[in-house]
């Protein structure tokens, strides 16, 4: 095998690896995004706080929906202390869904 052929194979490998590395480096973007916006998510969850029962969820729904709008959340699923989960959805604000 000529030296030039070998060089071409090596260069092809380099082109492949360089392309791979160029994209591989951005895989941490998701983590950076979370770090940037975590405070917003944390404040939303803290503002809503705990919900004990579906009755309490119904009473607090208008306030929780306002909090969701303020923090730009379209849906929020909160586990109930009494068991199950309740979901708030801004696209259908009249409905509270309960799931076990």
């Amino acid at each position, binding site marked *: 095998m000529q030296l030039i052929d070998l*060089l*071409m194979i090596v260069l092809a490998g380099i082109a492949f690896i360089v392309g791979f590395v*160029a994209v591989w480096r*951005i895989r941490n973007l998701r*983590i950076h995004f979370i770090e940037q*916006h975590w405070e917003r998510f944390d404040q939303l969850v803290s503002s809503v706080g705990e919900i004990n029962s579906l009755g309490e969820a119904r009473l607090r729904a208008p306030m929780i929906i306002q909090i969701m709008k303020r923090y*730009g959340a379209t*849906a929020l*699923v909160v586990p109930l202390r009494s068991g199950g989960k309740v979901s708030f959805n801004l696209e259908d604000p009249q409905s509270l869904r309960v799931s076990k």
Partner: protein
Amino acid sequence: MKRTVTNCLSYLILPGFVAGLLAIVQIMDPSPTVGYTQRLGAALALYGVGSLIPYFLTNDILDHRFGEVSTVGGYTVRFHPDDKDNFDLARSALLALLVVGIIFWILNIILPIRLSTTQPTWANSFWLTGVVFCMLTGAVFVYMNFRPSSGRTVSIIGTSTDTTSPTAPNATPLKD
């Protein structure tokens, strides 16, 4: 934002580095059968193929653009539910692009020599497919980098009752 722009610029500059290395090889071996542009086309197609592999090795890049953002402290932060469909669509599109890239790479090696006698115009211009493919993967890279974070709505889904005080993302084993 600055980091994203830096990443994009580095992606676009790196093919120049490959082209430079090829120019050095061409100076060493000015082959009459295989021209510089033909070598460049094949190398850039392979560069594009290499840049598509990470999308299949890790979900983090596609998740950042479309899907689930995090599962931290009993809460899952997720973008619009349609993003799940977009995630699957993007995965399929990237697979198709990868196959096309491999075909272009092989054709860039074989066709110019085979067509040089019968179709010299095609043979001389086929290298452009490698350049176009590389630019296409560059566009994919830029698309994956930019995320309209401001004003984008999220869904926050509690997965356990112990969610009153979610931990900071640094405290979870999110980092690779």
